[in-house]
């Protein structure tokens, strides 16, 4: 069998209510093209891309809208044909101001550019060509952070990647987009993995899946067996949050610990999201840019929870309407997963390459309490997967003693939210750390 059980158990983690049953069995549907798309130029980590179109321009589907501005950046392409109505400053999912290209779609398919050089014989392509295609297609990490994939796949020459992990853990509650992707398009996923293996010259690859998705585990291992692919294995992980976090996943599977402040490449591992892997497949084999993604629309506040393929730049309202509309008792809209996602002030925000979910939560699904002083119970310390001491750290942050916070490794915090989730005093721990990290990042480096 090519199913491996994860050998190592990380410290901490929590078990939130998963509520995956809402959307897990919903087949992925395609959203009809909205009339207006507002495409953000900040869909990735790094410098925002630079628009290359002007107001009034007519653009075709797949055409370049904004080019990469710098090494850590990614281009953005048009998800549909239409006219550029305006380029304005809007608000991104995180609340930060972003430049948005407003596109009025005309829903004609005549102007479509299909893949320019599609090739099924990708094996013949050189790694440079593959990397170039990935870069030009604007592929970024689809898991949430949006790190440009091209940069990730070009590790410094002194760091040899030995192991590739494809992250299908999807440990965030509610979200099922990656799960559906694994079930519906295993061939794209596996081909994507083979492409990455070729680029990095890696022989060993694991698909990491939490054991609450037995169907996906079975399907993928059967697929691998049928195709007689030996270097890719399915690795099952125990279900808990944050099993999908890069450093935790590497430890679970390989037993290697990424050093504080280091990258997975430091221990010879590379982790890619399933969505990203499929995007790589599209970019290399079909030569299609990253213009749409699967988003889980879920929560008790939506009429029909579903998994939807939507073009980037779709306003959330369109997604909500497509899924039967919002119920009356919706209290909170979250972009992304409930643990790490961003609460939204309006449904006018648009999807990006990193929007993995859109959650409409009712009062019983969210917790809203007044926070009270720390009672030093230590639950957060038990829950922290990074082995930090959130209770202590938050007190440093509260006293604005950011130096002590830094000395206690606040910069290692990945803001997974386990501490705040387990805190009986409902202290806004993660917010404290975010503030401290923002402050420390703004400090000049010594």
């Amino acid at each position, binding site marked *: 069998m090519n199913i491996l059980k994860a050998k190592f158990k990380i410290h901490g983690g929590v078990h939130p209510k998963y509520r995956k049953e809402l959307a897990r069995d919903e087949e992925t549907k395609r959203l009809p093209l909205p009339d207006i798309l507002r495409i953000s130029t900040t869909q990735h980590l790094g410098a925002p891309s630079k628009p290359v179109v002007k107001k009034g321009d007519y653009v075709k589907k797949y055409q370049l809208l904004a080019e990469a501005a710098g090494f850590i950046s990614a281009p953005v392409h048009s998800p549909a044909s239409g006219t550029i109505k305006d380029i304005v400053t809007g608000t991104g999912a995180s609340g930060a101001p972003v430049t948005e290209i407003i596109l009025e779609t005309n829903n004609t398919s005549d102007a479509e550019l299909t893949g320019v050089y599609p090739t099924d014989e990708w094996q013949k392509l050189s790694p440079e060509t593959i990397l170039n295609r990935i870069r030009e297609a604007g592929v970024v990490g689809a898991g949430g952070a949006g790190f440009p994939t091209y940069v990730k796949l070009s590790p410094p020459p002194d760091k040899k990647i030995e192991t590739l992990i494809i992250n299908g853990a999807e440990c965030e509650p509610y979200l099922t987009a990656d799960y559906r992707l694994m079930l519906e398009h295993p061939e794209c996923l596996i081909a994507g993995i083979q492409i990455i293996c070729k680029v990095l010259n890696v022989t060993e690859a694991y698909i990491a899946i939490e054991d609450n998705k037995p169907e996906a585990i079975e399907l993928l291992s059967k697929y691998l067996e049928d195709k007689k692919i030996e270097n890719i294995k399915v690795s099952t992980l125990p279900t808990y949050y944050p099993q999908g976090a890069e450093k935790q996943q590497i430890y679970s599977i390989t037993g290697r610990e990424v050093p504080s402040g280091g990258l997975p490449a430091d221990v010879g591992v590379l982790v890619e999201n399933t969505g990203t892997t499929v995007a790589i497949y599209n970019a290399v084999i079909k030569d299609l840019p990253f213009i749409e993604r699967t988003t889980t629309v879920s929560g008790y506040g939506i009429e029909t929870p579903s998994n939807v393929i939507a073009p980037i730049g779709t306003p959330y309202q369109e997604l909500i309407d497509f899924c039967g509309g919002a119920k009356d008792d919706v209290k909170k809209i979250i972009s992304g997963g409930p643990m790490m996602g961003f609460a939204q002030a309006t449904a006018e925000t648009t999807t990006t390459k990193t929007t993995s979910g859109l959650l409409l939560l009712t009062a019983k699904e969210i917790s809203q309490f007044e926070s009270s*002083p720390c009672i030093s119970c230590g639950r957060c310390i038990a829950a922290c997967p990074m082995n930090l001491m959130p209770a202590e750290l938050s*007190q*440093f942050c509260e006293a604005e003693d950011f130096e002590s916070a830094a000395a206690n490794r606040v910069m290692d915090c990945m803001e997974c939210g386990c501490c705040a989730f387990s805190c009986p005093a409902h202290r806004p721990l993660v917010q404290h750390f975010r503030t401290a990290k923002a402050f420390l990042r703004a400090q000049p480096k010594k």
Partner: protein
Amino acid sequence: MVKLILIVISAVLVNNFVLSRFLGICPFLGVSKKTSTALGMSGAVVFVMTLAAAVTWLVQTYVLKPLDIGYMQTIAFILIIASLVQLVEIILKKFLPSLHAALGIFLPLITTNCAVLGMAVLAIQKNFTFVETVVFGFASSLGFALALVLFTGLREKIDRSNPPKAFKGVAIALITAALLSMAFMGFSGLVKI
């Protein structure tokens, strides 16, 4: 040898200068705001106390006793301790100016630190030999350092928490000191020296 070990245990834990004898309270409350400063102060006190123990014993045995002027003990000892403190100050100013600035007025105040004088007088009263006196002086200063660093840790934590308004600042620090002292009472009766 056993006696020396007993002296150490006695001076550090059982008859801790700050927490059991209540000597040297001034720097104990004054420089217990930051661990780094507290450590610096502890270092200075260890230096002064150990040296003072040796010098005062020598002066007592070879000057005051033969001349039969034991009643000048206090004055002679203060003189010696003051000079030692000045010496520490000169050295710190040269090599650790930042610590010198952080300790501020509390450095010269070691002169009047009753722990140092108390240690010297106690050593004479207990008829310690020279080696015993030096060990006693060193152990006493370690006890002082232990109490100071423990208390600073507690105070740093309390500073970050939010006590009722009436207790803020020195009030809660005094209560903490009292609790710490009571905790050290648990050692009483462990050794008899």
